[in-house]
């Protein structure tokens, strides 16, 4: 389905995740972040870049991996995206929600 975010029509899934990562812009990130109750800082954008690169390389995102990213440790990651950091960070970064397969 389509959704108007930051004045742009983008395609999203039923949970509001972008389905086409290439439609992502910083403005869209800020708008989704606002919906999630997060105000983006430079640190956020640094992490978003890390997340987008990881996903573009086909790597799996984990809290452990982000904690070792050199951008933030796991506790700081929670500070940036309170509550459900991985879900919020991926949604704001315009990449798919990580599937936890066990």
């Amino acid at each position, binding site marked *: 389905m389509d959704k108007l975010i930051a004045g742009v029509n983008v395609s999203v899934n039923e949970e509001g995740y972008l389905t086409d990562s290439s439609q992502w812009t910083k403005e869209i990130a800020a708008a989704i972040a606002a919906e999630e109750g997060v105000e983006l800082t430079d640190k956020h954008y640094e992490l978003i870049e890390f997340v987008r690169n990881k996903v573009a390389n086909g790597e799996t995102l984990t*809290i452990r991996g982000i904690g070792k990213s050199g951008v933030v440790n*796991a506790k700081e990651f929670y500070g940036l995206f*309170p509550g*459900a950091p991985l879900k919020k960070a991926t949604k704001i970064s315009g990449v798919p929600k990580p599937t*936890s397969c*066990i």
Partner: protein
Amino acid sequence: MKKLLILGAGTAGTMMANKMRKLLARDEWDITIVDQYKTHYYQPGFLFIPFGMYTKNDVIKPKSDFFPVGVNVIYSKIDKIVADKNQVLLDEGVVLQYDYMIIATGTRTAPEEVDGLKGNLWYKDIFDFYTIEGAVALARHFKTWQGGELVINIAELPYKCPVAPLEFAFFADAFFTERGMRDKVNITYVTPLPGAFTKPRATKMLGELLEQKNINIIPDFNIMEVDNEGKKIIDYGGKEIPFDCLVSIPTNMGDDMIERSGLGDDMNFVLTDKFTLRQKDHENIFVLGDAANIPTSKAGSVAHFAAEILEENLMCAIEGRPLTAKFDGHANCYIETGYGKGTLIDFNYDTEPLPGSFPFPGLGPFGLLKVTRTNHYGKLMFRWIYWHILLKGKEMPIDSEMQMAGKKL
């Protein structure tokens, strides 16, 4: 002589030794299997030990009972794999050369990954049940425990046998009810997942079962540390949960040797193609079982189904043909729900666990996502099947590929 080397003689490695010895001519192929331990543990049995249903003797046999004739066995630690030279270095300086290799070194619990988990209370008020030592220590503890807050916590994903912590919770409910002290034991299930399980229908069914049994569930909890003094677990978000007895499912990691060999991800699971089971960067290395980083359950049933795929693909590789078999991520798990009953789930990479009957459509005898006595007997019977059929690499009457027949969408 050509050489096939198998690293690890657990469920996966032992099955492959048996399968490949049948397929590869004795006068052309040497098969060598390496493991540091001499005892084979029936790991699905660990779950039963804390509740006094099994003892240590019920779950151990010598590994040597399960190796076929004509396989060299080396009991040694492995230093590292030098994949560019087709070599494996053992401790004590032995060097093994291989033409093809199967890595089946499994996963281990790594309690040291969570601060305070292996602290003062380890094996006093904090236990795991994924090791024989932990399961036996917990059995001893439960014999005299007076009750209180029983907290079951999964540290991190992925972890071996994803349904075992749920089964533990169901067994604990039944165990303390039968002892007449359920009113003194508050059971809380604390998980990093958003619910009882990953996929929608199984999560709903198992979540309802937890509720019926009066087991609290706290989802989305990513543990940061264990406070031994305050007896509580704390997550990165600052949530605190007090415990009197903590049953932890520690972080799972692949063998350290994988890290030294540069073949794994950041948890030391080997980078593996999820369809062919071939190592990502080396054409003559294959990976089976928990050691692989493929996105399916770490469980014996998965290793068993994948073994049939690996057997075919390894023969393709050896004979210089394209790899024809494709693993679908098939997993099949009996779930004990207490009071002599159980449920069953069957799923793969793409299809979530669905209700229905298994393995024969409409007939069963096992019910998928249903709680029945037959499912419980299926699990108990499985121990015999494991020792006598599965490890020896014999045929089982179940398809390696998941079947949709018998499932209801």
